[in-house]
């Protein structure tokens, strides 16, 4: 053996550190996947809020009125809009994942295209939800 481990300069791969996240450019698929995880975690954290709102909406006419008053506040509307985005994004990217599982659009180019397409579907739907929420539609 003429070469030892010290002779060869082998490439070294390390995990990305938190401080590198901003500079790290993910491919479209990775970005969509990250947002899928992020939106899921967001909805998990919002679960008590959503159940509480659901409870208010069904318990009685009085609690329904309380909910209506609550929903007229802009901050609550903004929170719900964020959750609407989370749901729509999670749903659309989830359908993409299911299609990939079925080997639909699994080729590199097709997968990269669909990873951008999910935003083109979920963002306008979120906009529509926002317009409805803020009473424009």
């Amino acid at each position, binding site marked *: 053996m003429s070469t030892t481990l010290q002779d060869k300069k082998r490439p070294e791969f390390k995990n990305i550190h938190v401080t590198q996240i901003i500079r790290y450019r993910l491919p479209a698929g990775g970005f969509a996947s990250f947002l899928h995880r992020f939106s*899921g975690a967001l909805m*998990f954290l919002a679960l008590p809020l959503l159940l509480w709102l659901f409870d208010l909406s*069904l318990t009685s006419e009085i609690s*329904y*009125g309380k909910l209506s008053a609550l929903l007229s506040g802009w901050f609550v509307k903004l929170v719900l809009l964020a959750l609407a985005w989370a749901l729509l994004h999670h749903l659309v990217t*989830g359908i993409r994942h*299911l299609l990939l*599982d079925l080997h639909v659009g699994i080729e590199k180019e097709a997968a990269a295209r669909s990873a951008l397409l999910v935003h083109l579907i979920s963002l306008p739907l979120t906009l529509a939800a926002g317009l409805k929420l803020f009473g424009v539609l």
Partner: protein
Amino acid sequence: MAANIGRKRLVVGAHYGLRDWLAQRITAVVMAAYVMVFGVYAMFVVPPGYEAWAGLFAPLWMKVATLLAVVALIYHVWIGMREIFMDYVKPTWIRLCAYVLTILWLAACAVWSVQILWRV
């Protein structure tokens, strides 16, 4: 349990990886169906106001359908959150606490939603 896949590959383990993978997809389909049918119906068909909204959840089949969606949601959330904890929370003690709290919290949410639904 260990079984040979093909001639060479020995598969070992508890097999909950495949089970969770499959369960996450099945629960996703259940929820997607519920959300899309219910969402469109509630938004465009049900008139505004408490009477119509509460009336939607009055029939038993609607309570059962909604509860099935909630159960699917909770199993789905558990698999997803467990995955997140496995990726980012390394100290065993903290991870175990996160698991336990998540399970307790999700179980509480399930009970809460039963109470909400069956009070209508």
